[in-house]
């Protein structure tokens, strides 16, 4: 028998099988990059006016800090339970099965809601503004008409459905195929963001003139007229810096950046979960958090804070919506630059729907394996090793939400973020107590790190709970963030209640089949 010593510093190993797992640190990070959906910085900039005195870059920094603390907690739990299914797996095993299921169900439900909504937003806030910018720059009525079509019900529905169908097909072909597409899209996204930053920097320094280019398209003095309208309406100039408003505004970037933690849903498919999730989650948050900070600072410098506030409140004298991608295109003043700078907005808007399908399909796969969902949701395609029925189910649910958004006004005022944020707060709080309540499991794990004798997981849990807890609270009461608070809060509660009933109904159903669900979660006693 051959031996080797030491393969790991201070540890001897011998030749034996099964010492390998899968790979993908960069793909975990790119998943986070797409899930964060920086494209929706469009809304965040528009919402800025509702928080007078708020600093967008500082809000981004606070959100990123909170996100990293929480993200490391997620990565640590994923290290303990390196299986697909995300928080369902570790909460059901370490806290309580029903809580794990409720949190996971809520997240999966609202992720699928956003599968549809993101499909709609691709059309509304990515393709349409891009075509509008191109139409204006090329003086093409055809492109402007196309831009308008993409805001129509059928435009939204068809675009979103095609997007979801393609993403579902790629995922059906297996994680390897999907992540390869996501990887190349992410490289293009990062390159496109760099081009955007360079153009905005030039506009900020005066080498490129946004005001001049805007006036050239909208008429002489148009820029000043927009600002004057804002001043008259009382939304401009920007109010002096206000930290409390910055904190309140923090939830806007937070509820993009924090979603990188959803990568723990496919932990069973990546190699070296500890490294992949730690680097992947924090890397995505830091990269996109930094992008947010830089972009918002440059937006203000390049376009002028007063212009942004005025345009967001009163609109612009162009046949196009007052969105930052349009302003960036105008600042560049060149159709080729417009294409290059639109790529990140377009590609993220496409792939964010893919990230939501991955989360929901992996969560439901884990439920099915435990017997709390139909068995067919747990079936994995033999050829491509993908949970094909789960992918199909959540894609169809996403298209249903998409059609409701496209053809009715039912979903207009709903925000699904509260239903998603339940996971953030539960995991953050549990991270504080886990090393003490499950002391043996914590100590007997590769994440038994301590700072000054205190578990690092608990320390991060405390930081995350304070900041995420504040975000959760603001989310529940901030009517600027969610127009119809009662409906949104009620929706989150209904999701939880439904999950509770589902869990116990399935438990009873399995008992009739002679299967004791509790056995799936219970550990065999060792003494």
């Amino acid at each position, binding site marked *: *028998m*051959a*031996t*080797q*010593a*030491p393969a*790991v*510093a*201070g*540890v*001897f*190993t*011998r*030749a*034996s*099988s*099964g*010492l*390998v*797992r*899968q*790979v*993908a640190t960069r*793909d975990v990070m790119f998943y986070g990059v797409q899930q964060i959906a920086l494209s929706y910085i469009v809304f965040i900039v528009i919402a800025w006016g509702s928080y007078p005195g708020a600093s967008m870059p500082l809000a981004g920094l606070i959100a990123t800090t909170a996100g990293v603390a929480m993200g490391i907690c997620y990565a640590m739990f994923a290290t*303990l*339970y*390196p299986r697909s299914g995300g928080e369902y797996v570790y909460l059901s095993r370490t806290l309580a099965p029903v809580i794990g299921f409720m949190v996971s169900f809520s997240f999966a439900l609202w992720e699928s809601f956003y599968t549809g909504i993101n499909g709609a937003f691709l059309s509304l806030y990515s393709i349409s503004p891009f075509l509008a910018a191109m139409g204006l720059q090329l003086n093409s009525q055809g492109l402007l008409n196309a831009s308008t079509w993409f805001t129509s019900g059928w435009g939204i529905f068809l675009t979103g459905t095609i997007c979801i169908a393609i993403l579902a097909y790629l995922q059906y072909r*297996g*994680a*390897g*195929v999907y*992540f*390869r597409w996501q990887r190349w899209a992410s490289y293009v996204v990062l390159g496109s963001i760099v081009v955007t930053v360079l153009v905005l920097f030039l506009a900020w320094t005066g080498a490129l003139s946004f005001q001049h280019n805007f006036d050239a398209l909208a008429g002489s003095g148009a820029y000043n007229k927009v600002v004057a309208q804002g001043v008259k309406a009382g939304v401009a100039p920007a109010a002096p810096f206000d930290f409390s408003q910055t904190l309140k505004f923090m939830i806007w970037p937070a509820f993009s950046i924090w979603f990188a933690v959803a990568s723990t849903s496919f932990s069973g498919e990546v*190699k070296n979960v*500890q490294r992949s999730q730690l680097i992947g989650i924090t890397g995505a948050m830091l990269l996109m958090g930094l992008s947010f900070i830089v972009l918002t600072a440059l937006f203000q410098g390049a376009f002028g804070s007063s212009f942004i506030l005025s345009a967001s409140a009163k609109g612009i004298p162009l046949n196009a919506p007052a969105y930052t991608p349009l302003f960036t295109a105008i600042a560049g003043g060149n159709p080729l630059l417009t294409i290059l700078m639109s790529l990140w907005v377009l590609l993220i808007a496409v792939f964010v729907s893919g990230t939501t399908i991955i989360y929901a399909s992996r969560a439901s796969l884990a439920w099915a*394996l435990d017997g709390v969902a139909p068995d067919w949701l747990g079936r994995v395609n*033999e050829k491509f*090793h993908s949970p094909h029925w789960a992918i199909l189910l959540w894609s169809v649910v996403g298209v249903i939400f998409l059609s409701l958004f496209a053809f009715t006004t039912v979903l207009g005022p709903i925000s699904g973020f509260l239903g998603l944020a339940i996971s953030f707060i539960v995991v953050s709080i549990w991270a504080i107590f886990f090393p003490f309540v499950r002391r043996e*499991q914590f*100590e*007997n*794990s*590769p994440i*038994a*790190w301590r700072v000054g004798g205190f578990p690092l997981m608990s320390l991060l849990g405390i930081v995350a709970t304070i900041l995420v807890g504040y975000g959760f609270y603001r989310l529940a009461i901030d009517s600027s963030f969610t127009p119809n608070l009662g409906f949104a809060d009620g929706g989150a509660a209904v999701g939880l209640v439904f999950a509770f009933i589902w869990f116990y109904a399935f438990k009873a159903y399995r008992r009739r089949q*002679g*299967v004791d669900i509790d*056995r*799936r979660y*219970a*550990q*065999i*006693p*060792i*003494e």
Partner: protein
Amino acid sequence: MRIYFCSDIHASRKCWKKFLNSWKFYEADHIIVGGDITGKFVVPIIKTAPNTYTATFLGVERKIDSEEALEVLKTRIADAGQYWFITDPEEYATYEADQGKVDKLFRKLVVDRAEEWMAEADQKLKGTGVRCFVSGANDDFFEIDSVIAKSEVIEDPNGKVIELAGGFELLGMGYGNPTPWACPRDIPEAQLAERIDKVAANVRNMDRAIFSLHVPPLGSGLDVAPKLDDYLRPRVGGAGLEMIPVGSTATRDAVLKYRPLIGLHGHIHESRGIRKLDGVTITNPGSEYGEGVLDGLLVDIDPNSGLRRVELVMG
């Protein structure tokens, strides 16, 4: 009749203790470990001063400053399926420079733990009526066979057919097809097929035969593992990680030829599942021994109607 089957527990103290209690927990009358009961890592605990030790365990450097803490660390190492041994910096340096010495250390620690386990099984299972089967498989040194043989309650089905209640029979085979690691019981497919055929000739009724063949059938879906390069690293291609079937043709041929009641397999930790191979139910409970989780299978068999239910469980 209810069988509880698990495999690949790789020296995890916690998994072994769970296994010994599994019959009560799952109300099983037969419990089986399908091989690979020995571990792959030794953690040297280096004594640097009186009551002061240091060790690297699961990638985290542990500093120990009391005998009580030392006992806790030993237990944790054993729970994770690893072996500990106390040494000092000078002796540790001699191991680093001597492959043969490390090899000898492994064999001693493997046998020591197997002996502890057998004694524990005798104490816990004697007089309970439960039948317990444990065998070595491709990762296990041959020395453990004689350790298992000394147990008063454990039966080793490796290379034989053992009669169970109701006319059912258990056929065991711990040998496996070649792996990149050249493990102790890796043999060529032709030899493996020959060994299976030889044992299968002793089965009286294939409809009531339970095949515990460590390596799953090739291409069965229970044998998917990452493809490795020349340095035993997973290969990543344009479409991501390259996964390939690594099961055995000999096992596959045996299942297709003899069509037993059920095939119980292990070996590939990541390929947990229940499948059909030309109508024959085949299974792999997977393994997460490193986390102290005992992945297993419950097989309910009716003496009259045969296989009733097969369920994956996680303990």
